[in-house]
């Protein structure tokens, strides 16, 4: 890692230079919320965002992605990445991207994801404003975000510390007036990123292993899960907004000529009714997670238990998006985990 400093006055021209060279996808205001969008001017950039509506996974794993096109029996893939910069990603989302990187390369590498990921320069930024349901300060707080090519920290009124972690990150230095950072600036940035963790409004205070064990042991407590899911609409918003959800469905569709068409993958949600349903013909079907409680249990197990061994941590990064997006306000992992821990400890 090498650290650089850029003054506030020079920062807008860095961004505008960058936009001229490469597509830059970064947080922008969307009415009173925020969204990762391609910048058309540096003024759109809102590094003071709290959390975006959708996580940045959409840049490598879009809500709809054509994975092949066919025409009368002939077919071809569609992978055609462009060099781009994903800018201003908060550490919790970097952790989520790092997890997804692993899961999309494990056993079988999915080039429909990795080609786009590899073509992207990932620039993180410090959290200037804390989202109202965030709990990243406590969950996976011991896991250091990795996978970023560079990381930007706003140092109060002076300017920004710009830490470079890879060649891709280093390339960006050409577009701004950077100078070597001082030890004090590096230390200040570290403190800023550390101190913000205590400001999360929500908290998962339990030991990681104890929590995983207790949640796993609650599997057969049908009443608890049914209670937790009682008001669930099975809409899947908690999945859609989750930075670590990566499930999908694949469907074909025809073009209007009825000869050509495409095979598309879509984000899918384990909280929806037919996610685990199969048809066996003759009007028979089997749904392996038929009840709302079973589906809620699956989601929580997947975030807090199932993937822990592979990932070395929970597959929840504490962004709080599911809590914000849930119409019935039952998706918040903090409340769910609390209920399970309380129940299990009498």
């Amino acid at each position, binding site marked *: 890692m090498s650290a650089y400093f850029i003054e506030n006055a020079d920062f807008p021209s860095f961004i505008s230079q960058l936009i001229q060279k490469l597509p830059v996808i970064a947080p922008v205001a969307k009415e009173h919320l925020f969204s990762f969008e391609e910048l058309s001017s540096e003024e759109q950039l809102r590094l003071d965002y709290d959390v975006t509506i959708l996580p940045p996974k959409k840049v490598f794993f879009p809500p709809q992605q054509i994975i*092949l096109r066919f025409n009368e029996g002939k077919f071809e893939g569609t*992978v055609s990445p462009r060099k781009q910069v994903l800018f201003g990603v908060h550490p919790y989302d970097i952790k989520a991207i790092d997890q997804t990187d692993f899961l999309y390369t*494990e056993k079988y590498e999915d080039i429909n994801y990795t080609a786009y990921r590899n*073509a992207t320069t990932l620039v993180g930024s410090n959290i200037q404003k804390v989202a109202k349901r965030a709990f990243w300060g406590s969950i996976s707080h011991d896991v250091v975000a990795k996978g970023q090519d560079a990381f930007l920290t706003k140092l109060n009124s002076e300017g920004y510390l710009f830490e470079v972690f890879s060649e891709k990150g280093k390339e960006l230095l050409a577009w701004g007036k950077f100078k070597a950072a001082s030890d004090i600036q590096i230390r200040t940035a570290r403190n800023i990123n550390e101190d913000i963790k205590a400001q999360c409004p929500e908290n998962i205070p339990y030991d990681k292993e104890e929590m995983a064990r207790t949640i796993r042991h609650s599997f057969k407590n049908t009443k608890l899960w049914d209670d937790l899911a009682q008001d669930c609409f099975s809409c899947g918003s908690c999945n859609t907004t989750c930075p670590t959800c*990566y499930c999908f469905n694949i469907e074909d569709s025809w073009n209007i000529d009825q000869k050509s068409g495409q*095979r598309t993958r879509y984000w899918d949600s384990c909280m929806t009714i037919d996610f685990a349903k199969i048809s066996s013909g003759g009007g028979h079907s089997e749904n392996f997670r038929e009840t709302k409680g079973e589906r809620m249990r699956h989601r929580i197990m997947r975030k807090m*238990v199932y993937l822990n061994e592979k990932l070395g941590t929970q597959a929840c990064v504490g962004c709080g998006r599911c809590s914000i997006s849930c119409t019935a306000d039952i998706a918040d992992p903090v409340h769910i985990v609390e209920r399970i821990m309380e129940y299990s400890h009498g």
Partner: protein
Amino acid sequence: MDNTVSNGCSQVNYDADNIFLPKQVKILKVRDTTPMERHFTLRYMDGSKMLFEPGQILEVSLFGYGEIPIGLASSPTRENSFDIVIRTVGRVSSAINRLHEGDSLYIRGPYGNGFKLDKLREHPILVVAGGIGLCPTRSLIQYILDRREEFSGFTLFYGTRDPSQQLFVDDLSHWRASQDVDLFETVDKADEAWQGHIGVITELFNQVSISSDTRVVICGPPIMFKFVIRELDKIGISHDNIFVDLERRMKCAVGKCGHCQINDKYVCTDGPVFSLSDIINLEEAL
């Protein structure tokens, strides 16, 4: 900076490494097996042989309709072709079942773990197949019959709803006459021509003695597993020696899409064949 990704001299061709691109196969033969199922014999367009293990699955697709997971229904010991059976259920299977000899299908695979042949060799084997569960197990049955000397006693239980649902009728008549396999059949509901046993598949355990060192393979509708396992527990067969072939909604077959997940296991990549001891404690498995 150049705004495209290249390998220095030419545009990267990603298709070769794209796990979602299928291979074209030709339909060599189609047979109507039951009112709901059709039996296809397939071969790669270039005539090459597919390497696979009994119990593995394919993603079979028809462009414009979609892709479905299907177990291989023939043994790799057989010819330079392979079989699948498609039950008419939804959009994809209905479209595939309208195809004819000479038409093309598109496949990805083979995927997953098959029947553990090394654990089956040199021990008595019982295969319990219910309904369409005879398709993936036919791959194993053919394998055992082709390499009979590698295996010990071989018993096959096959149950269907009624005689019209019986698959592979030519095979069944061959197996009935064969000294190499003891076939026991049952139907839930008989027709006038049916001479055999009537009743659920577990009643077949009364017709033959199964020893406790038997290796057992089970494949059938979800409801069947519990009842068959109950019988096997009575005999005292170790759960390490019982292998179950599970069905799930495997959309990708490469452990990504999440649909087939049972606890921390993916049926497509960790299965579809599991030893019972590995999944008996996974609450959503059986």
